[in-house]
Every structure is written in C-alpha cells, then in structure tokens.
C-alpha cells in the first residue's frame, strides 16, 4: 500500500516562508491526499464523507470536508491497523466529560515532533535554552495520569536543558530555587514555559500579592492552554502581558494555540500579538449557524487544517473556538501565512481544554 504523500519534502517547507498562493496549492494537494487516504482506510470517516455531496469536488481548501472536533470523544477513529498504534493521546477532561482519544502511529508521532520543533525553533532559535517551568515537578511525576499539562511540559522540554521547576508541589513559588537557577544563566536567554492560568495565578498574582519582583529580562515565555478561566476574571491578553512585565520584566511573551487532536500543528503568537499558521497548517473561519466561510474580519468558528494527521482522520477539524482572521501574508512581524486571533470557546459549548485540567 503506498503512502498518501511523501512526507520528506513536506518537512522541508519553510516554516513561515510560503506565500499564500504557493502554500494553498501545496496544502490542497497534501490535504486532498489525506482526505482520500482516510476515506479508504477509516470506515467511520468514509460513512461521513459518503453523506456529503460533491466530496470529490475539492478545488480549494475550503471545499475539503471537516469533522467536528467532538466526534473524537464518542468515536475511536483510526486509519491504520490497531497494531501500528504506538501512542494514544487523550484530551484533558474533568470527570463527567468524555475525553478525546487520538491514535498515533510512528509516522504521525514523528511528524508531530518534527513540525513542532521547526515552529518553536523559529521563535526561540535552534539552540536548547535553560528552561524554567512555571509549574510543579509533581505534574510530570505520575506517568499514569498523563494530563495535557504533563504532555505540554514534556513536549516543550525538548527545547530546554537543565529543566527546573519554579513551583513546589503545593503550587507556591520556591524563590530560593528560582534565584539559584536565574543566577546560573544571567547572560543568556532562558525559556520559560507554563500554562496560561498557572502563570497568571501562581506567578503573576502571587508575586503581586507578596510584593516581590523576580526580574527575568532574558526570559522568553511560551504559554498556552486557554484563557477561559482568565476571561472569567476579565483578564485580557494585553493585561496579562503588562502585569507579567511589571513583576518579571519579561517582554518576550508568546501565547500558543493548538489542540490535542492536531498536536504538533501549533500556532504561536508573534511580536504583534497575532497567532500565525505555519506552512503545514491553515485556518478557516466559519459561520456558526450555516458553516459558510466567513470573510476576513468576521468572527466565527475556527476550522483547523493540518498535514500531520495520518493515523486518524484529524486533518480537517471544526473546533468549538471562536476566532477572527486578521490578515494573510501581511503581518508586520514579517511571517507569511494566515494570522488570526482566538476569542475563546463559543457559548454553550461544553467546557474543555488544557486549563481545565486544573480547577481551583
């Protein structure tokens, strides 16, 4: 059985260097191949496609069929023999909620880590940096409770060395340990990583409460995992950045957006505050009532496309997140591709996502 696409040239694509015209042609070929691959190998996907008229008629990326992301909670969707599964990723989910199950084979898992690595390296550089995790070590100790937080910290640790944890297991900052770490690396960039809500609650708010400043001028913070709990506290992305700068003098702050159903295909916020699609991903905004493509400037549901999913039909997914396309190829940060903003979960969607792995 032949592979749907040869992934090697795909991995050679420049991370943010393809013009929209070129990118959309290449993506259309890769994504059509994936659609056909999953159609032939995943019976459930085939049955969905057979109900869609003109599934063959795919002239542009927006013609590609998409699955609602919550389908992965009720269905086990695979396009490979079960014996080829090397890892099952599950979305976070609190009790009473179903979790998504994503089945990975070697190829998909390898593409995830390679593409993630290319995207992140393009922001922080090719060298591994000393890494301070704004979380506690206990989060990664229990391998059987492999939460989204665990996966995020581990996934990002490949970009760090001398990984240190800023918080004790009771989630308070260990100022001695943090100071010792920072003293070791005064002259070089430090990678800081944490979940948005945890950085907010246990770093920014804590330092404000105890009136202590921990300056990390050479820090680059990557944070993600949703704003829902912050939105309920009415904290905007700008306020988050401003207050983090006040307590820690960190100015390089990058939020990231992505979902476990498309691991590896992450979107990182640039210096201008926009999330960027890489060469390997695209987003489309759809009207939540009729699912029609919305023009630039319209706020609607985010559809995510990724060339990575090979072992499961997750290359074109309709999320329950609301967002807006700000532009294409024109961001003043210089990166090509679609750039956008995410405004959170649509009303009445069930609560899910990384930040919910931790509720106070």
């Amino acid at each position: 059985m032949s592979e749907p696409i040869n992934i090697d040239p795909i991995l050679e694509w420049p991370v943010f260097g393809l013009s929209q015209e070129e990118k959309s042609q290449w993506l259309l070929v890769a994504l059509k191949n994936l659609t056909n691959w999953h159609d032939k190998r995943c019976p459930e996907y085939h049955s969905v496609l057979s109900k869609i008229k003109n599934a063959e008629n795919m002239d542009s990326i927006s013609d590609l069929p998409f699955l609602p992301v919550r389908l992965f909670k009720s269905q086990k969707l695979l396009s490979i023999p079960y014996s080829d599964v090397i890892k099952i990723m599950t979305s976070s989910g609190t009790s009473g909620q179903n979790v998504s199950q994503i089945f990975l084979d070697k190829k998909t898992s390898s593409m995830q880590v390679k593409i993630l690595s290319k995207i992140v390296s393009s922001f922080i550089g090719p060298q591994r940096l000393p890494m301070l995790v704004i979380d506690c070590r206990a989060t990664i100790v229990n391998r059987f409770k492999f939460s989204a937080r665990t996966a995020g910290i581990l996934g990002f640790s490949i970009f760090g060395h001398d990984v240190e944890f800023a918080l004790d297991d009771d989630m308070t900052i260990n100022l001695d340990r943090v100071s010792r770490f920072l003293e070791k690396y005064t002259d070089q960039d430090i990678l800081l990583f944490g979940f948005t809500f945890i950085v907010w609650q246990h770093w920014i708010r804590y330092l404000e409460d105890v009136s202590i400043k921990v300056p990390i001028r050479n820090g680059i913070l990557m944070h993600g995992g949703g704003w829902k709990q912050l939105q309920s506290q009415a904290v905007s992305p700008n306020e988050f950045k401003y207050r983090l700068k006040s307590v820690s003098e960190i100015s390089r702050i990058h939020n990231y957006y992505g979902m476990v159903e498309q691991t590896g295909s992450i979107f990182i916020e640039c210096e201008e505050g926009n999330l960027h699609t890489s060469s390997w991903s695209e987003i489309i905004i759809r009207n939540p009532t009729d699912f029609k493509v919305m023009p630039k400037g319209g706020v609607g549901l985010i559809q995510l496309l990724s060339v990575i999913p090979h072992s499961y039909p997750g290359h074109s997914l309709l999320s329950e997140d609301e967002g807006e396309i700000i532009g294409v190829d024109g961001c003043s940060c210089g990166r090509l591709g679609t750039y956008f903003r995410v405004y959170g979960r649509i009303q009445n969607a069930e609560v899910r996502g990384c930040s919910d792995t931790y509720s106070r």
Partner: protein
Amino acid sequence: MSNKAKYDQIFIDSFSVTADQLNDKFVYQCVPAWDSVGHMGMIAALEDAFGIMMETEDIIEFGSYTIGIEKLSKYGIEI
C-alpha cells in the same frame, strides 16, 4: 569507567533493564519506562555524564540504543 560502561549504565538505570537487553532491538517505547518522560531523563543523564548538550533534532531522532551511539559520536563521544 569506559564510555561504553557509562552509556550502558545510564540505560540500565533509566529504564530498569539488564545489560543483556541492550542491543539493536532496544528501541524507543520497547519497555514501558522508555516513554517520553523516560526519554528526557535519559538524555539529561547522558548530557551530564559526557558533558555535552545535544541539539533538539538529535534528541528527537535518538530512537534506539544503537542510534544513540551514532548520535553521541557526533559530539565526539565514542562508545
């Protein structure tokens, strides 16, 4: 201790295996302890033991006991 002995000991300690299990069939995820957590622990131990810092790409490609030997030679460590 020779480089080979150090290299083997790190595998034995990181993955709770015996020396006779270490051959070209000893690959990522062949034992439960060699998961992503175990992998990063092993890499950190190798970096400490040999005083090197590996590139992200080499950590990703470090998929077996045998490939690891090739990867370390890139950093001037002959096993």
